[in-house]
């Protein structure tokens, strides 16, 4: 049996496309979960555009990092930038963020699964199965994982086409998209701005895997395209749901994007939502596997990094993920206050990490440049 090396890298391949796909998938992760609570009014569509521009700013800083020589050196690059203790602190700080994201995503997804597909099944099963599979996926190592994103994209791209019929319904009218500017007594919703920003967050995790992305100067181009596609997707689905429901009915629906899938009928299947939710698993499992590897990587940095990687270590990280997620789902996920608490926590955590992490790396690079020159 060959030596197991989860974090090995063999080929030097032009990989702007991976960055593109990864950014897009990371940003679209939340569209089923978060979108409904945000896009209640038509003028919120502008929020998506504005936040998209803001996220472009973060990606711009991120691309500075990719253009620097550090990512190509892997772990040593980080060591040079932050020092040995710096890395440990970073790893320690990133762990709760990762755990929160993992738990939030898998519990929310399990919620959707339970609500629409198997109402009578315990939610915990819907958490356990994807995580087991994502551990299996993660066992193939980081290089295979990064490659796998193309398959995820192919497995999910067709979902968008399902929403086209909603633009062609005869009961649509352009009046459902009015008013385009917020006029009214309600205060401008800062929270929704934050929520959209947090749902566009995620690309900051590319820093951790930048070694496998073979960074280059052109990265900004790919990141921009990815960001534009994500914003476009969010806009596309939001407009479709606004047209379909109207701005008064929409706030009463819990998961509009899924409910819309339910409305579709094909000659062979009805209730397309079951297939749609299941296909969404591609993204969930993939990103969980990615995060599992990151968790393992981070905990290795905390411990003795010199020892070789082992499957057992990854499985232990997977078990930690399951334990954390299950305990949240079991004891702290009452509908109402606790769910909104987690949503807000994730919202703050996501937005702050998306804003601060690129900035932190950028400042570290600046400082390094000053000290060395």
């Amino acid at each position, binding site marked *: *049996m060959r030596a197991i090396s989860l974090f090995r890298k063999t080929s030097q391949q032009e990989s702007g496309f991976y960055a593109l796909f990864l950014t897009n998938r990371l940003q679209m992760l939340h569209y089923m979960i978060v979108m409904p609570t945000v896009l209640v009014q038509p003028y919120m569509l502008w929020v998506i555009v504005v936040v998209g521009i803001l996220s472009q700013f973060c990606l711009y800083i991120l691309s500075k990092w990719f253009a620097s020589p550090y990512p190509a050196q892997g772990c040593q690059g980080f060591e040079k930038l932050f020092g040995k203790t710096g890395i440990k602190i970073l790893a320690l700080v990133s762990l709760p963020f990762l755990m929160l994201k993992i738990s939030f995503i898998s519990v929310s997804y399990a919620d959707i699964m339970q*609500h*629409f597909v*198997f*109402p*009578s*099944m*315990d939610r915990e*099963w819907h958490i356990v199965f994807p995580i087991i599979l994502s551990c299996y996926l993660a066992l193939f190592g980081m290089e295979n994982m990064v490659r796998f994103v193309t398959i995820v994209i192919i497995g999910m791209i067709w979902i968008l086409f399902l929403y086209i019929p909603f633009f062609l319904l*005869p*009961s649509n*009218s352009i*009046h459902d998209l*009015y*008013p*385009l*500017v917020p*006029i*009214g007594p309600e205060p401008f919703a800062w929270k929704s701005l934050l929520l959209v920003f947090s749902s566009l967050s995620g690309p900051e995790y590319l820093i951790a895997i930048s070694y496998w992305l073979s960074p280059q100067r052109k990265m900004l181009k790919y990141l921009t395209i990815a960001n534009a596609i994500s914003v476009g997707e969010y806009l596309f689905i939001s407009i479709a749901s606004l047209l*379909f*429901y*109207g701005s*008064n*009915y929409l706030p*009463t629906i819990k998961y509009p994007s899924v*409910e819309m899938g*339910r*409305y579709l*009928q094909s000659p062979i299947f*009805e*209730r397309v939502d079951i297939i749609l939710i299941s296909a969404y698993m591609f993204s969930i499992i993939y990103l969980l596997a990615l995060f599992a590897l990151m968790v393992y990587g981070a905990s290795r940095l905390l411990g003795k990094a010199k020892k070789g990687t082992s499957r057992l270590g990854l499985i232990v990280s997977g078990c930690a993920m399951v334990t954390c997620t299950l305990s949240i789902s079991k004891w702290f996920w009452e509908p109402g206050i606790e769910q909104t608490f987690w949503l807000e926590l994730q919202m703050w955590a996501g937005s702050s990490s998306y804003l601060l992490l690129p900035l932190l790396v950028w400042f570290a690079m600046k400082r390094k440049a000053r000290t060395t020159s």
Partner: protein
Amino acid sequence: MTRFLRTTIVLLASFLMILPCGCVPLPENNMIEEITPIIFWSVKGGREDGKITISTLVPPLSKEKKRVLTLNVSLLNEGNKGFNLIYHNELKAGQIRLLFVDEAYAKRGLTSLINTVLTDPNISKRLFLVITKGNFDEFLAKHLDEKDSIDFYLYRMFKHYEKKKQGEITVVNLHQFMKMLYSQVSDPQLPVFRAEGEQLLYEGTALFDWDRMVAEIRGQDDQISQLLYRDRFVRYLVLPDLSVTLGHIRAHTRKKLTSDLSSLSIEIDVKGRIDELDSLTRIEDNFQYVALTQKIERYLEENVFHLLSQMQHLRIDPLQIGGLTIKPFSRPITRDTWDRHWSTMKINVKVRLHLEPLTKVK
């Protein structure tokens, strides 16, 4: 390590093999041969004790004798539970396609019923809602034959007319009803059928104020009102008063509101053919043709006006005219404001006919 992995895989595989036999974390049994998916519910209110009567038809198989299950309950799902207790199969609501509601019940408001239906994640939003008159259970009782699957035929009828948005009968599903219900300024509508012995006759369209049925338009009025919706196709428009039948009608309607909401002008372009004429009427030259056309135009205009003023009188807006008040850069108006304006609005109707005569006109 290898042996450990191999053992795990073998154990896992055998574990998975055993699971289909029984031990599944899924307590619900949806095995298709053991359940009876029902296709419709018929709900009837108006009893003295405030309870509702709910009935359905089982089994869905076409080769078996059918029976009507009826229960008096106070909650919809209580009926569901009750059905399971009196029938040998478990009844499942996941395939429900039609909801017949009695007129008397609809007049008291549909909200509670519809909320129950909406919250069930198994029920599709494509559920057709229908108002019934007369004794619907009796109608069902006459269709219990082995070869008869009336529930399916009814569903297929709605599906047929829904598909191409034909204006032959009004077809509204749950989603459309809810969207109209929630819309700030418009009101929903539903089809009305009358059960008479073996027959279920289409009678017209029920108009709602919020969730309560308040009026009904029938026959010719119903046909004319179909013209007012966007791009509907009406196969026959029978005008007995003028002894004319128009066929293959496509209407294009433009509605315009003045900015102060004081008047509404409706222009309807009707394209179609004269399908049938009374033997007394003749169109032999252009003059006669134009005269007839004008006569029909006037007649339609009067009727549309009449229809609209009826709606104004009831302060309802099934045509979603209020939707026109929403502008890109202004606040949407409230329901009260709209009702105030709507009830006093001046209405101008203009109908333009573009007809093809049956014969050649000199």
